[in-house]
């Protein structure tokens, strides 16, 4: 026994001097966590490494960190998804043959973003903003309101006096915002309800898809300046969201049922435990 204790103390002493070193912790996490399936290992992104290096102009060095905080980054949309090129090949990363587009001209920004955000582009181009851009080359584009790289999840708060009144009076935008706000509230509530249900283990594919579609179409509507159209469509969205909400309330009822049923079983078994204990005591 004494020998065993001595061996254990020795083992402890051997390991203690370097106990908890930061480098070891980092190395540990890299070694134990970063083992990817061979075909799915993330490749080195030369866009990021080059943009962060000393050779880049200082104003362009912040782009990777801006992007990393963006809604795009959270959804795995990387540099090459918008700007093209080959992020794995340093020599040809910016080769037009590999689809490199680079930075679009100011006038081309809506088309640039609209390759993915098709519905939004359609509404924007028909709007006063879009028409003005086409005719004069000067109008608010996507980046004016959403920013270029640090793009966040869109919300109705983007329509605000500070931003709109840079170019014109806020009145029209305010009317638009009011027309959109009821549906926006429903969107926020439905989004929250879906995420609560997901946290509680209910992943509702059908409802999620329906919500995503409604949400995307509603967001596209933000880009028109036609108040009449906004009023017409928001009614439709409210109805669609109402249907989803009804279905979600059914799931919340189901969660309540689950909790109540489990409480019933808890009480049942607690009661039985007590009865068995009484029986045992009585027999004693």
């Amino acid at each position, binding site marked *: 026994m004494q020998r065993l204790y001595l061996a254990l103390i020795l083992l402890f002493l051997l390991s203690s001097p370097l106990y908890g070193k930061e480098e070891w912790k980092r190395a540990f996490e890299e070694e134990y966590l970063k083992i990817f399936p*061979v075909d799915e290992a993330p490749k080195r992104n030369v866009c990021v490494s080059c943009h962060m290096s000393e050779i880049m102009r200082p104003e362009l060095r912040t782009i990777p960190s801006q992007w990393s905080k963006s809604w795009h980054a959270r959804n795995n949309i990387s540099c090459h998804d918008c700007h093209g090129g080959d992020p794995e090949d340093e020599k040809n990363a910016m080769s037009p043959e590999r689809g490199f587009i680079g930075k679009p001209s100011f006038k081309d920004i809506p088309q640039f973003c609209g390759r993915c955000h098709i519905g939004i582009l359609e509404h924007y181009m028909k709007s006063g903003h879009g028409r003005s851009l086409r005719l004069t080359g000067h109008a608010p584009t996507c980046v004016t309101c959403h920013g270029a790289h640090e793009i966040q999840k869109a919300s109705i708060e983007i329509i605000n006096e500070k931003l709109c009144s840079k170019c014109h009076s806020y009145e029209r935008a305010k009317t638009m915002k009011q027309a959109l706000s009821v549906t926006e509230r429903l969107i926020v509530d439905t989004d929250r309800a879906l995420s609560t249900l997901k946290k509680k283990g209910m992943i509702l594919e059908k409802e999620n898809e329906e919500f995503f579609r409604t949400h995307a179409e509603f967001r596209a509507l933000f880009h028109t300046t036609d108040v009449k159209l906004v009023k017409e469509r928001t009614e439709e969205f409210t109805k669609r969201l109402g249907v989803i909400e009804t279905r979600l309330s059914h799931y919340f009822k189901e969660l309540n049922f689950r909790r109540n049923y489990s409480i019933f079983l808890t009480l049942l078994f607690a009661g039985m435990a007590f009865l068995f204990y009484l029986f045992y005591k009585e027999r004693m």
Partner: protein
Amino acid sequence: MKIREFIDERIAFSELIRSQFSEYRVSERLNIFYTLGFVALAGFIVQFITGLFLLIYYIPHPQYAFQSVQRIMNEIPYGWLIRQVHVVGSNLMVAVVFLHMFSVFFMGSYKKPREFTWFIGATMLFLTLTFCLSGYLLPWSQLSYWATTIVSNLPTAFPVVGDCLADTLRGGKSVTGFTLSRFFGLHVALLPPLLSFLIALHIFLIRRTGISLPPWNASEGMKGSGQDIEGMPFYRFMVKELSMVMLYLAVLFFIIAFMPTLFLPEDANTPADPSKTPEHIRPEWYFLAPYEMLKLIPSKFLGITAQLIFVIIFLFWPFIDKSPERNILKRPVLLWTFIGVTGLWLLLTVLGGY
């Protein structure tokens, strides 16, 4: 009545029940900790039954595993209850087995002639943990995928054979569909009969050597057998055990009612994505201490060797500790070692949680 007579004439079933439950008597001094083994057995039976139901709808394929589990949770009538009982039950069972081992150690019940009983029990503890590890991957969620990635990388710490061991466990260099197949096979085909066999052996050994008695105020001396002519019939002790089983089930349903996401956090509801490491990934609570230990000891080899030594000491403890004294309170060095090791384990578990 006729059926009973029919059976008794052939296999004397009533005689078996009488001899095993009424005539077999145990001491009235057996405290609540003596019921934990039975509670763990009940936990295993619950796991076995719920596991069978889950098997009906579960699909062990990376493409369908997550969906099938979601279907069990949200579409199959009372599927949520079966799965929650299985998930919460597995954690509770580990907790009960830990408590059982602690109480057996603390009361010196592992001493002669019960060394084999301890060895089988300790082996069953590791089998239970293997059960948990293999079952954890099956839902193929972010949580299960990454927790398994960590744990299946641990054997790589062994020199020479480490990589080979880890590759064999996973069926490749990383956690893939092959790992899922292997873990599924292990979880449903290999481990249940193995654990059942060991449980039978454990019970056989307990009946052969008798239930030990608490070491304090013992007049029986070294052997300390709970078998007692003057004691109570075994069925009465079983009522106490059943009371504890009911309490176990009450706790289980309490967790399901008020803490349904305790063992199923958000990452458990996200399908596995091998290219996206979630933040704050960590193994299940019972693996946190060894995980944190490996993290803190700055040599992979030393870390795994230390753990291996602890496992070997734990398994063979009754053969190492040959002192005839069963009362740990009369053995300060052992008592403080016990407190120290338990405290260290708890500390590492807490540290690992952050």
